[in-house]
């Protein structure tokens, strides 16, 4: 397959404006003749569904949660970046663009990232107009703070619940359109198949999670905004129900999957407490503005009361290794530093399987400087959450943190228009691969989700519809068409198969085992040997799953066990592609760290000669190895450099 990123010609700063002018339009009177299907109601999906409906398209929006307000965007804590330069500290579109490209270890597409930085300023205007209660200063204007990977204060926030407030803004816009009858909302409804006719995405097959009824929906374009695949690791900071099913089913229908090996491990999460753990909880990166990361210098001090360890016996790892960014080093770098310290036997916290997996995040200095009240005002809800989970008071003793899977930069390959290699199928937000390269900077996920949903898809979907259909009388594919019937039959067959196995092991046990395998061999450090073992072990586990899983109940009722089985079955296929991609990328960059490729100081070593590309994997059919297509990344504006935060 030849990948065409469709990057507009011309200078970087003018590409998007030029492209907007050149795109085809649909007359307002004709828009209601087009049906657009949106899967997912988070920042990207909710914003896209609302905006497309405002423009006049008929929108159907689907989410598996009980309400569109519950998408996992809601859990984002720290903030959203925008190049407003309100702090007068030297910010600009160019600098946000540069920081994002560098933060992504020079593995993102220049034109997309530049556009992201450009529209970032519109996002803040939009959200304020919706009534998002951002933090303000006494003068009444918006407050900002700093975040990892940046030396500026460009992050807007709403206490520690920025994602919640931005999502509620999008949800309210979506609700307005639902109330007006412009969006038909389907909650508790899961997409299980993309329907393709004559090479175009023409609809979806969904399952009503309450009645079990399986139905077909026809549309002129389909948008997937279904989030990331972090739960392939079982333990992650993702919500329990996050899954890869929608983009994986699309992959098997022709939408290439790009860079799955780029997974982000977030440094500030609450450590695992035992085998029963169902998920991990993130403590916002904003804590690193005031908290200092340290471990004891001597392994013998690891089980001592931290307060009894004198300053001279503490190793402030990030401040020592990265003096100019210190505790605000980017996530991948901070995570690896924590892992190294623990691997050296200097971790803290309870001993689990012979290891202490934790480092201190200490607020003593900040409390001494600003007072406890100020720290409580800034992070009170996070300290409370920490106490609920661990039973410890972080005002009195340092927090313990450890890295955990948090975000996935890889995703469905999309061109500049956010369209996948399956025409008519658009992918937005975390579900696509586009803007973060090999590592995402803090407060940039919210920015990307809303940029895609509010400001990019509403243009590019219209352009696709205008170019591919007769505007006056767009041809609608009947759900009685053979393509729909075949897809319906395939979904039914798969559900029936899952229910019939009646084996000995629960879905949870398979998911847990898969997650542990992937974390051990494709987590923070990856080796050729480990990845090859993983590629041997995953198919064996998958085979066992399809012979020995036990799924209770029937398909014609609310059956959470059956929903879970379908998602884990997809993870069992997806994990193999993740491992393969990690094996093929013989370099270290961002969140992908191959132990074979590091410099003398243990820093990631990129190989720009051979790997300055996006790896887009194409499904080749059952039992066949996927085909690797490469999109070369061409840097016209910035110079490829070693990514240093020292």
């Amino acid at each position, binding site marked *: 397959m030849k990948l065409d990123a469709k990057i507009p010609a011309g200078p970087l700063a003018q590409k998007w404006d030029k492209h907007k002018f050149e795109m085809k339009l649909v007359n307002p009177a004709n828009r209601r003749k087009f049906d657009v299907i949106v899967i997912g109601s988070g920042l990207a999906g909710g914003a896209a569904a609302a905006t497309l409906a405002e423009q006049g398209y008929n929108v159907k929006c689907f989410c598996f949660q*009980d309400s569109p307000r519950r998408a996992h965007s809601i859990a984002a804590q720290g903030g959203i970046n925008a190049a407003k330069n309100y702090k007068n500290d030297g910010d600009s579109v160019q600098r946000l663009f540069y920081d994002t490209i560098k933060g992504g270890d020079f593995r993102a597409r220049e034109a997309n990232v530049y556009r992201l930085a450009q529209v970032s300023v519109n996002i803040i205007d*939009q959200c304020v107009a919706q009534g998002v*209660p951002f933090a303000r200063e006494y003068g009444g204007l918006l407050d900002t703070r700093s975040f990892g990977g940046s030396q500026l204060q460009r992050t807007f926030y709403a206490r520690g619940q920025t994602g919640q407030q931005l999502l509620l803004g999008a949800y309210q816009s979506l*609700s307005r359109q639902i109330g007006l009858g412009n969006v038909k909302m389907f909650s508790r409804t899961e997409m299980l198949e993309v329907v393709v006719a004559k090479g175009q995405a023409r609809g979806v097959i969904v399952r009503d999670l*309450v009645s079990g009824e399986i139905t077909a929906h026809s549309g002129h374009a389909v948008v997937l905004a279904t989030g990331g695949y972090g739960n392939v690791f079982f333990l992650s900071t993702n919500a329990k129900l996050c899954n890869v099913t929608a983009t994986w089913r699309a992959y098997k229908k022709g939408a290439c999957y790009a860079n799955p090996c780029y997974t982000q491990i977030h440094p500030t999460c609450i450590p695992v407490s035992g085998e*029963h*753990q169902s998920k991990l909880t993130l403590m916002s990166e904003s804590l690193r503005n005031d908290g200092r990361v340290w471990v004891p210098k001597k392994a013998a001090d690891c089980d001592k009361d931290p307060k009894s360890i004198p300053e001279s016996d503490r190793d402030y790892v990030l401040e020592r290794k990265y003096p100019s960014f210190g505790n605000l080093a980017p996530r991948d770098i901070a995570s690896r530093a924590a892992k190294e310290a623990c691997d050296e036997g200097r971790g803290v916290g309870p001993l689990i399987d012979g290891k202490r997996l934790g480092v201190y995040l200490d607020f003593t200095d900040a409390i001494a400087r600003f007072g406890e009240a100020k720290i409580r005002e800034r992070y009170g809800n996070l300290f409370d959450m920490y106490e609920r989970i661990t039973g410890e008071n972080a005002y009195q003793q340092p927090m313990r943190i450890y890295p955990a899977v948090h975000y996935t930069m890889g995703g469905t390959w999309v061109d500049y228009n956010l369209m996948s290699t399956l025409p008519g199928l658009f992918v937005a937000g975390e579900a696509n691969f586009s803007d973060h390269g090999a590592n995402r900077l803090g407060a940039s996920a919210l920015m990307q989700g809303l940029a895609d949903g509010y400001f990019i898809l509403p243009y590019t979907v219209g352009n696709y519809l205008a170019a591919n259909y007769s505007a006056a009388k767009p041809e609608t594919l009947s759900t009685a068409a053979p393509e729909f019937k075949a897809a319906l039959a395939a979904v039914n067959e798969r559900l029936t198969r899952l229910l019939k196995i009646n084996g000995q092991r629960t879905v949870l046990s398979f998911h847990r085992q898969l997650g542990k395998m992937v974390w051990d061999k494709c987590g923070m450090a990856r080796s050729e040997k480990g990845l090859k073992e993983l590629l041997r072990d995953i198919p064996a586990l998958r085979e066992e799953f399809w012979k020995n899983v036990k799924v209770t109940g029937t398909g014609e009722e609310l059956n959470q066990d059956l929903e879970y089985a379908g998602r884990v079955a997809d993870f069992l296929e997806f994990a193999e592609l993740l491992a393969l991609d990690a094996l093929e990328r013989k370099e270290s960059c961002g969140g992908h760290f191959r132990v074979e490729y590091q410099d003398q100081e243990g820093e990631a070593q990129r190989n720009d000669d051979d790997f300055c590309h996006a790896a887009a994997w194409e499904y080749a059919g059952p039992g066949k190895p996927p085909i690797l297509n490469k999109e070369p990344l061409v840097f016209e504006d910035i110079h490829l450099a070693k990514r240093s935060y020292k």
Partner: protein
Amino acid sequence: MNLTLKVWRQKNADDPGQFETYDAPGIIPDMSFLEMLDVVNDQLIAAGKEPIAFDSDCREGICGTCSLVINGTPHGGQKATTACQLHMRHFSDGDTITIEPWRARPFPVLRDLVVDRGAFDRIIQAGGFVSVNTGGTPEANGLPVLKDDADLAMDAAQCIGCGACVAACKNASAMLFVSAKISHLGLLPQGKVEKDRRALKMVAQMDQEGFGNCTVTGSCEAVCPKEISINFIARMNGDYAVALLKQGA
């Protein structure tokens, strides 16, 4: 810890439902309440029995999905804590724990502990928004907002829409939820333009869904995991009265 669970089981909306008793042996104090249920469910499935259906997603207290009445109290009675953030260290070995769904007519039970909270969505659809389209919005710093107003709006905006307020109220009143949204938007200049219309429409939809009225018992505020203040109900009543007067009713 070894626990005994009395759990509400109900096959579907039409089934009358009943309590079933289960043993939960070997529970570790560091487990969350939902992890304890995961363990019980895994044992039920392994024994070929249908697991207990319950809603949960983020498991960090922000999505508002989890909805369990634990020992008679929505979310289990720990201050400012959702059921997913409740940990087993707050229970004792040998305890019997009763687990029920939200109980309110506008929240019909779909299965076991899962209820339908679509009524909340419909109330927001009736008017819980600022009517702005995407694009063409003014510069964000063009309109200063008093910090105190912004902070108070944020206090209200923190509502996670879980519905515990309704489950706790003897009248199944949704007024804490509705007032939180009316206050959040009404306090900000961006939302003031539609303030009257919003109050009238949201209250009308709330009544139509069958939620009861407020008799100021304060049970909603007591169980609210985000500690939304009952003062917002007073604010809503004021806004509603003003809107009615302006309308000439």
